[in-house]
Structure formats: structure tokens, C-alpha cells
């Protein structure tokens, strides 16, 4: 790779954010307090949003913040604080099958890496990374509501079913 191709600032940023994300991800599973774990997860998810920004995927980054940080994590915290959220260390957070998670995680890593490398190989999104421009939102929406309209409808239908299911479960009578 010739020097002109390298985006030094972006690569340094990527390294710092990745390091932060890895540390935070480890803290999510090692920390002994539910709320702390959830807050470390917020760091991981915001880090992902920052990585999307570095790839100039504005829309995906903002969606990541809106959905994961703004909604999912708030609901997580809301739920744990309503039920069990003691301050200080808790001893019974570890499941005795936790070691099983390691091979599953490694398997996932392997499958994902294989799919990405097999699918894209050495292809590059654009020839010169310095020219990267954010994709206009209109292009994204034209794609979603054009060629991908049917999957979009299917997803909406699944969500509708989930909402109705939640109402049915929540109603006592």
C-alpha cells in the first residue's frame, strides 16, 4: 500500500476506538454489577457508532446511537433498575456454564471472518479512500424502498406481530 492511500488520522482513531471497545467488552462480562455491565455495553455500542462515522457511514452511525444507546440500553437499564440493581458487588452473576461461551464466540468469529473474506476478498469499496464521501440519505431510502421493498415489508410485518404479541402478553384480562 502506498503512503498516499493511508489515512493516518483515521487509522489512529480506529486503533484507539477499537482498543476502548475491546476493554469495554471485556469489562461487560467481568464486572460484578449489573448496571456497570450495562454501562460498559453503552461504551461498546457508542464505539461501534464512532467506527461507522470513520467509515463515513453517517446514517448507520446515527441509527446505531438512536436505536442502541438511546432506546435499547435505556430499556435495559430501566428494566434492571426496576427489578434488581443493587449498588456494589454481586456474587451470583456468573452462570456455571460460562466457559461454554468461549467456543461459541470463537465459532462465531470464525464464521463471520470466513463469510466476509470469502464474500469480498480483496475488493475495495472505492479506489481512493481519501475521496470517501458520506452516502446521501436519499440513496439509502431509494434502495430500501426500491429493490429491497419486499424484505422491508416482511420485517415490518414481523415487528407488527411482535408488538401485538407484547400487548397480548401484557394484558391481564
Amino acid at each position, binding site marked *: 500500500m502506498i503512503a498516499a492511500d493511508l489515512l493516518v488520522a483515521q487509522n489512529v482513531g480506529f486503533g484507539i476506538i477499537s482498543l476502548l471497545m475491546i476493554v469495554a467488552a471485556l469489562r461487560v462480562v467481568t464486572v460484578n454489577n449489573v448496571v456497570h455491565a450495562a454501562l460498559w455495553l453503552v461504551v461498546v455500542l457508542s464505539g461501534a457508532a464512532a467506527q461507522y462515522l470513520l467509515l463515513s457511514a453517517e446514517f448507520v452511525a446515527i441509527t446505531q446511537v438512536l436505536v442502541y444507546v438511546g432506546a435499547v440500553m*435505556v430499556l435495559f437499564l430501566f428494566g434492571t*433498575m426496576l427489578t434488581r440493581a443493587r449498588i456494589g458487588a454481586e456474587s451470583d452473576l456468573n452462570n456455571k456454564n460460562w466457559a461454554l461461551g468461549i467456543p461459541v464466540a470463537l465459532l462465531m468469529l470464525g464464521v463471520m471472518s470466513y463469510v466476509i473474506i470469502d464474500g469480498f476478498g480483496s475488493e475495495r469499496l472505492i479506489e481512493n479512500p481519501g475521496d470517501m464521501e458520506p452516502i446521501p440519505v436519499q440513496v439509502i431510502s431509494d434502495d430500501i424502498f426500491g429493490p429491497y421493498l419486499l424484505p422491508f415489508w416482511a420485517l415490518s410485518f414481523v415487528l407488527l406481530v411482535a408488538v401485538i404479541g407484547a400487548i397480548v402478553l401484557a394484558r391481564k384480562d
Partner: protein
Amino acid sequence: MIALLAADLPYWAQTLLRILGGLVAVLLPAGTIVYLFLFKMMSFMQSRLGPMEAGPYGSMQLFAEVGKWLQKEDITPARADRVIFKIAPLVVLASTFLLVAVVPFGPDAWFTNFEAGVFYLLAVSSVSVLGILMAGWSSANKYSLLGGLRAAGQLIAYELPMVLAVIGVIIQAGTMNLQGIVVAQNGGEIFGWNGLGNPYILTQFTGFIIFMIAVQAELTQTPFDMPIAESELVSGYMTEYSGFRFLTFFIAEFATAGVFSLIASVLFLGGWGVPFAWFDWKSIDDVSDWMNVVGPLIMFTKMMVLAFVIMWVRFSYPRFREDQLQRFAWKVLIPISLVNIMITAILKVAF
């Protein structure tokens, strides 16, 4: 201003300018709102004078207040979660600073010009909920926890009508870029007459009302102040905070009121612009450079009007009960805003 200078300034100087500009854009409205509305207007509405001692008409009262808070001891409750307790006010304040980053103040006077500006605003405004939940939980106080949970429930409920009300504006403007929305309003015309531009408060009046109600709730101002209801919860999630950390919450509350007023004036009142027909401007490239100076002043005026309305409502109405508050969001505001979107979309296609 900022973009004009950007051409010949090194990166660190641009960053410094942006930080300074952000501080001014956040703190100046907050100070003005607190002095003019919280101290003086509330006093006049209650037939009293308000602060009179510090400076002429008590105009230096703000400095006295800040000085008082800075002197006070920074107390952390013994059983609190110390680290989270200390981070929480900063998370709330950070959300305010993130909000102001996309507000345009003039044709070239902006901090960032995000393509998906409106979407970004709605995303980062929900970050403050995290800070409030953190504050409520880490205080190790059941009033704080209850206040935090009420705040989270309320903010989630009122975020939806806010998003849905803005969608009407986006459909009409055809862009999510805030600068684009300003241009669409000032370059627009009403049935061929362009003397006033086309401020969306006229065509999106329902959206404007819903947006302002949702803003009132997002700011937890009365009538939506269940989270800090002082007669039942002491001061909600802020109960255990003292000194500088309380000041941070306080600044964040009124700075966010200012920033949301700025956003509402961009979305519905035409933002920094004057109707382009007045000066025969065809597009944003024709807009004269002096708008970079006049624009922020126009924005500030509009912000003061909207902040006045927010504070007026705050001092006039009694508090909603928790169930009324939730029912109002889910059963009144959200259906109305959905109908508003439908009608806007139909009219957009028809015309």
C-alpha cells in the same frame, strides 16, 4: 463565521473556534433564560420583584449564584456508586453540547453540516436519558431512583411524538439537512406569493404544537415535571447532588431549553434566514455574507420567543399525574402526529 475562517486556519484553530462557539451557543442562551425568565418573569407573574441587589435590577445575580454553588461542598453520599455518581451530570451536559453541533446560525456559520442533521438531533437528544438514569441509580436513594425511572419513562414516551412531528417537516422540505430546511422555508412561497417565504409553522402548525409539547416534556418542565416533583420526590434524580455537580444539571436543563428552542426555530420558524425574495436571492449561494452576523441575532430572537413560551407554560400550569402524562403521549399526541404525517404526505404528492 466558522466555515468562512476554515479555509485559511489550521485544524487546531478551527477546533478551538468550534469549541468556543459551542460554549457561547450553549451558555449564553442558558444564562439569558435563567435571568430573564426564571428570575425576573416568574417574579413579575407572582407580583414580586425578584433579585434586585446584585447589579442594576439584579442583573449580576447569575454570577452571585454561580459563585455560591462553586463554594459549596461537593458531597457524595456514603453508599453511592461514586464513579457513576460523578459522571452522570457530565453525560447530561454532553448531550446538550452534541445537540448544538448541527444547528446552523447563518449561511456559513455552522459547526458541522450533517447530511442527516435532524436524525442526528433526535438520536443524541436521547443520550441525556442515560445520564439521568445513571444519576438516579447511583445516588443510592429511593427518591432519586424513582425520579430517574419516571424521567426515563417520560422521555421515552415523548420522544416518539417529537420524532413523528418532525417527520412532517422533513417530508415538506424534502431533506434532513437543517441548512436545507432553512433554505426550503425562506426560498419557499405560499400560493405563488413569496413575501414571507414559507415558514413551516403555517403549514405544519399541528406538528409545531406537538413538537413544543414534546420539548416541554423532554425538558421535564412543569406541567411535565413528575421526575423532579418536589412535593413527593424531594428533587428526583438531582436530590443528592450539591455544589458544582448540581450546577451542571441546572445549566444542562436551561441550556437544553435554549438549544431545543433554537432547533424549533430552525424547523418551524425559518431559522437564521430572512425570506430570500426580499433581496432577490435565488439559492443559498446568493445569500450575502452579512447574514453570518445577522443570522445568529435572528436565531437568538426566535429562540427567546420560544423559550418565553416554554417558561410561560411552565409557570402557568399545574403538574400532570404520571398516568395522565403517559396516556397523553401515547393516546393523544402519537395518533395526532401519525395523522399529520399521512395528511402531509398526501398533500406533498398531490401538489
